[in-house]
């Protein structure tokens, strides 16, 4: 009896699922916590109020300029220089953070030392610190008469009030993103795969390149993307150290503020809309890259 009953029970949801799929009905997974309708509703509502409506307002306001007006502000030489600096410096900072963040994560995961918790807390500090504080501190250090800048200036290396200063500030704010995304993956990787590679005759470099890097690269990429995204939008810490010279060390978010201060709301939204599109395209590209990486290891 039981052997007859079992397949029937098993086949009932199957056929229902098949029917649902044929009809194109959204199949709801049975979940421990009910309330898909309510949670989905809240999600859509929150996303609309907090993200979608403000963003569309940017496009609607800038559309009021007309194409020529839009292009005149958004693609002016000064704006183009600002985009180049904003995205270029953010990319450079993310790349540098990839290296230092990885090393920091490595140290935190693989070694035990006194003060480890303190170091770990320090990593999070850029998250918590008001960015203006960071900006003032960095400027005090790297300005030509600052503690560090004073020694670098005679060597011909100017950091404060140059694009280099922008990169330094962006490295500062981006570091925790890389460390905190790579850390759990590294911890999960375990020391035994490294030991396995060693017993198989691999050198340290080979172990790193062939074993560790491929395993953590998705997390590293995610961390870099987050650091990059944060850096593109960074304002507070940059404006102090950048010097904000148009065409040279003026970032795009500052240019928006400059437009706003001149009561040129349209111009400000035009630049904002351009940044939004570039950012979206870049993040979308990174997402595709991550998806491709994930497919590589599961197929």
């Amino acid at each position: 009896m039981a052997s007859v009953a079992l397949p029937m029970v098993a086949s009932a949801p199957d056929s229902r699922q098949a029917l649902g799929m044929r009809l194109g009905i959204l199949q709801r997974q049975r979940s421990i916590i009910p309330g898909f309708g309510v949670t989905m509703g809240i999600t859509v509502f929150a996303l609309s109020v907090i993200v979608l409506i403000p963003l569309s307002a940017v496009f609607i306001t800038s559309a009021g300029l007309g194409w020529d007006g839009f292009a005149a502000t958004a693609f002016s030489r000064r704006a183009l220089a600002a985009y180049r600096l904003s995205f270029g410096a953010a990319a450079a900072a993310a790349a540098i953070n990839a290296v230092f963040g990885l090393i920091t994560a490595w140290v935190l995961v693989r070694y035990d030392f006194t003060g480890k918790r303190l170091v770990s807390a320090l990593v999070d500090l850029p998250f918590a610190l008001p960015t203006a504080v960071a900006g003032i501190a960095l400027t005090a250090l790297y300005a030509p008469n600052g503690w560090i800048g004073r020694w670098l200036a005679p060597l011909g290396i100017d950091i404060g009030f140059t694009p280099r200063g922008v990169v330094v500030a962006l490295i500062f704010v981006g570091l925790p993103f890389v460390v905190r995304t790579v850390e759990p993956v590294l911890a999960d990787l375990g020391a035994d795969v490294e030991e396995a590679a060693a017993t198989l005759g691999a050198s340290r470099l080979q172990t790193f390149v062939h074993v560790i890097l491929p395993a953590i690269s998705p997390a590293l990429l995610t961390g870099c993307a987050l650091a990059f995204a944060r850096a593109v939008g960074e304002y507070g810490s940059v404006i102090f150290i950048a010097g904000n010279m148009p065409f040279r060390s003026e970032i795009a978010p500052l240019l928006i503020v400059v437009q706003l201060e001149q009561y040129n709301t349209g111009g400000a939204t035009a630049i904002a809309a351009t940044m939004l599109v570039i950012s979206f395209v870049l993040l979308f590209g990174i997402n595709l890259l991550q998806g491709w990486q994930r497919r590589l290891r599961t197929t």
Partner: protein
Amino acid sequence: MSVTATGVIKTFGDYTALSNVSLEAREGEFLALLGPSGSGKTTLLRILAGLEFPDAGQILIGGEDMAGRPARDRRVGFVFQQYALFRHMTVADNIGFGLTVRPRGSRPATREIARRVAELLELVQLPDLGRRYPAQLSGGQRQRVALARALAVEPRILLLDEPFGALDAKVRKDLRRWLREVHDRTGLTSIFVTHDQDEALDLADRVVVMDHGCIEQIDTPEALWDRPASAFVCDFLGGANRVAAIASDGIIDVGGIRLPNHAPALQDGPVTGFIRPHEFSLAAPGSPGIPVTIRRCLRTGAQAALETETHDGAIIEVTLSEPPAGLVPGLTQVLVPTAIRAYPV
């Protein structure tokens, strides 16, 4: 190749993992390191592999001193308990890894590597799974891939750290037989770590029993079973009942029954005796022996397994091959031991 460890000492801070350990694995031998967790067996294995370095002592592999030689230069195959497969590589790439990382001069051609990999997949009975990823394999399959990967570099010796530790009982048993076959076919000197006495006695040519960083006994499974060198070994091999006894002139007295000792000689006085469940017969109440009350009786075919309790509350397990009728819980009987191994208290 033979493996020799002499006077190996290893400490981690205040903790002594190995205190003056010496052993030898002969050419082609299959050696088991058996002991409870914390006995230092895994540390010893890792020292042999070059994953850990001893504070003192000497390791020879094939007569060569391994002092200061890191793992990558030792040509030692190592199989990890948790497989340690490279998750982002296919099974074939995992197995071929040791060959592809060789310096350009000694690296085989890609074609040759592929041939070796196919050969090893055949050896570990996974011929069609070369293109899968480790995540797509079962635990037993992963461990076989790990073994193939270790064998690919043509190691001089093979070391296995609890190779079946993460597998379920059925798979363990199958893999055990199969590993012995692979060992016999390759003729590699192999050392494996286990805490499972059945596994050690079943697989190894000789078993090294360890406790608290010291070697208690090195012997063949038969000798280990027949003549355990210490109370620890006798206890760890399992199944033996512990009884109090008196030694005098090499004769052991248990409740009036006098038996020759099956263990190393003892001084006269109170001793701890070990009696295995099948080394008892039953007698009527009042006769010499250990008076007990039967608590449970389980008959399986012609055999009976009894759980009995002495007057002072100790449990003694007994197996009888020809049990009399009428053994019911609550019945009082006397156990007459037929053999005993006694050690100092």
